[in-house]
């Protein structure tokens, strides 16, 4: 008998199961009695509970510790409704200050105005302080009040490029010295930086223009 379980170790288990079967009806009966039941609903505290009972309540349930109502503030007035496009508004107001007659705007609006400065033109820009700058217009950036144009020239055999803001109060005048010989096929003539297409110095051209202008205007005041 003693050798039997070691040879078949699970043999003893089977006898155990058989013993369990005998118990089974009793066990199941006990489990049914402890079956799942719904959680009881929380009973609200009776209103007007007498004062002397309050101390028996847990601390968090005492009326002075009850949760306070959260204050809800109304949303602030919408700024986008107050001013739909503030950038456009600022641009407009600034243009009214810096360019009241709209001449400068027309001078650089190369998409609409046929008489405007165009890429490829040679211009002379004079400033309120500092020397004038001459050169070929490589590009015009139309960006509202930030509109600027890029002028390239060669001074003492060194290429110099200057991007100038059109509506800068420092810019006194922009004169067109010479138009492009034929309409360039691009809006931005960055290829003119390459050695092959570079216009080199335009100083001579501008100098002759200034001389002509002076002779033409005589003693009269410059425009």
């Amino acid at each position, binding site marked *: 008998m003693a050798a039997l379980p070691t040879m078949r170790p699970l043999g003893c288990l089977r006898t155990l199961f058989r013993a369990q079967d005998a118990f089974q009806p009793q066990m199941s009966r006990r489990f049914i009695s402890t079956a799942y039941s719904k959680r009881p609903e929380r009973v609200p505290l009776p209103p007007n509970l007498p004062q002397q009972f309050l101390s028996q309540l847990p601390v968090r349930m005492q009326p002075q510790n009850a949760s306070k109502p959260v204050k809800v503030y109304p949303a602030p007035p919408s700024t986008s409704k107050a001013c739909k496009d503030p950038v456009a508004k600022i641009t407009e107001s600034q243009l009214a200050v810096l360019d009241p007659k709209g001449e400068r705007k027309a001078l650089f609006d190369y998409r609409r105005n046929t008489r405007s400065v165009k890429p490829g033109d040679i211009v002379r820009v004079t400033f309120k302080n*500092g*020397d004038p*700058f001459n050169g070929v217009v490589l590009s015009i950036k139309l960006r509202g009040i930030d509109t*600027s144009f890029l002028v390239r020239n*060669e*001074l*003492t*055999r*060194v*290429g*110099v*490029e*200057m*991007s*100038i*803001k059109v509506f*800068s109060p*420092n810019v006194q005048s922009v004169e067109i010295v010479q138009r492009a010989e034929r309409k360039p096929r691009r809006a931005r003539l960055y290829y003119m930086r390459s050695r092959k297409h570079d216009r080199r110095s335009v100083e001579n051209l501008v100098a002759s223009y200034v001389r002509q202008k002076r002779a033409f205007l005589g003693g009269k005041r410059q425009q």
Partner: protein
Amino acid sequence: MIQLKTLLNCIDNSGASVVECVNVLKKKRPATIGDRIVVVVQKQRAAGSEGSGTALANKVRRGDIRHAVVVRVKKELQRKDGSVVRFGDNACVLVNKAGDPIGTRMNGVVGQELRDKQWSKILSLAPVHV
């Protein structure tokens, strides 16, 4: 954007023609117009090639370490009034430790920014400012 190893043209008559930046002084960023840098002379101007070459034959020689002031940069530079200036090359002028230019003449345009940084001696030598 002048930094370590940048090659610059030297536009004065000190005798150097190409110099290499080895240090930017008083700044932890790349140098720009008006900044002082330390350079090594890499290429000498041929002595006597210029008109008055005999008297002030090259004051500096290849391999010399000198201070210099940047006067032109390729990197675009924004001015106070919003305009942007860009030159076709990087160029500098050699100066001594006291800040006086070593050369006596300059050929080439220089940036206006030198005025803000009080390099008036260089500005007075330069033929054109932009």
